[in-house]
């Protein structure tokens, strides 16, 4: 499942990712535009037992969250 949280204000990115993880608990790919959202989403995923890998995608960030 892929979630696009680019340009959203806090805490909408984390809330959308939390909802996506409920729907697809095995793997969620998140595309983000702001560094602070990256930190927030990453922390949330780590806290909930996910492995997180990060890559740059142009000016954006791509996070892959896996169980």
């Amino acid at each position: 499942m892929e979630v696009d949280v680019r340009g959203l204000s806090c805490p909408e990115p984390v809330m959308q990712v939390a909802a996506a993880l409920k729907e697809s608990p095995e793997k969620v790919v998140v595309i983000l535009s702001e560094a602070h959202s990256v930190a927030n989403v990453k922390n949330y995923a780590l806290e909930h037992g996910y492995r997180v890998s990060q890559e740059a995608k142009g000016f954006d960030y791509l996070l892959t969250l896996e169980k």
Partner: protein
Amino acid sequence: MRSRKLLLWGIVTGLIAAALAYFGNPKNMAICIACFVRDISGSLKFHQAAVVQYFRPEIVGFILGAFILALVKNEFRSTAGSSPMIRFFLGMAMMIGALVFLGCPTRMVLRMASGEISAYIGLIGFVGGVATGIFFLKKGYSLGRSQVTKKASGMILPVVFVLLFIATLVVPGKFAFSESGPGSIHAPWLISLAAGVAVGMIAQHTRMCFAGGVRDVILIRNFELFSILVGIFASMTVYNLIKGDFNLTMFGPVAHAQHLWNILGLYVVGFSAILLGGCPLRQLILTGQGSSDAAVTVLGMLIGAAVAHNFGFAAAPAAAATADAAAVAGGPSTAGMIAVVVCIAFLFGVGFYGTKKEANS
């Protein structure tokens, strides 16, 4: 683990605030975003309240610190377009609420650390405002997405603040500076600027947010951002105890004990901060990171401060009786009370409106 690191950053920020108080800023106002934006608004002659006019270098520093660190870390993103005019008015409301309480959430924590019971009472309103904002977030509230814009758009306000600050040094006669009152009480400008840059960098690095700290505890049971606030509170409390400035009283200097209006003032601040996605400090930091939406919010705060003073919405500070003057209860005027009620109605309006789905959300 991260919480412990953030607690340390909070302690450092509290120490910087203590240093500013030590070097001459008003004690329980050492770093108050609302007070300082209000002072800048006065210095630019947007309002004529003679006791609160000073171009606070800390504000310039907060934006500049975040701006520099964002550039260095390659995190500067020039963005705009998330309902800027709604944000402008939310910024105004946030400022009016803060000036009825007489302080933003930062000053609330500083006042709590100096033993002011009125600040603890105000905290009830702040948490209530945050909780009301969360109610709308859970219903799907959003002001829509921001988009990437021309780089210059995100750089304008940081550059303008720096240029205006330089202008206050080169042609001070063009600006207003308080000769008495809180606006006249300040640390030397270089110390203020350096402290501001340091706090701006810390805030950019840690995502420090007074509304976010409370919000994350309620919304996702996460104590990271909250631990920064605990750190600030702890170091300021220790500083006040050492200096003998900790007094358990109803109110300290430039504050009042009209409980209902302290609660409702901070209710407006907490509520609007959640609808905006960040507290007054956070808006300055986001401005430094290139958000034109946050920059417009900061302009709303500047105008909100002017409106609050020009129309008599800002609360009057209370004063104990002296040999030649009777005690003053302080608090907002009737106009100020009406303004708070109008702000609350506006915030509920924005909250409900923001839950409606539109194309850009």
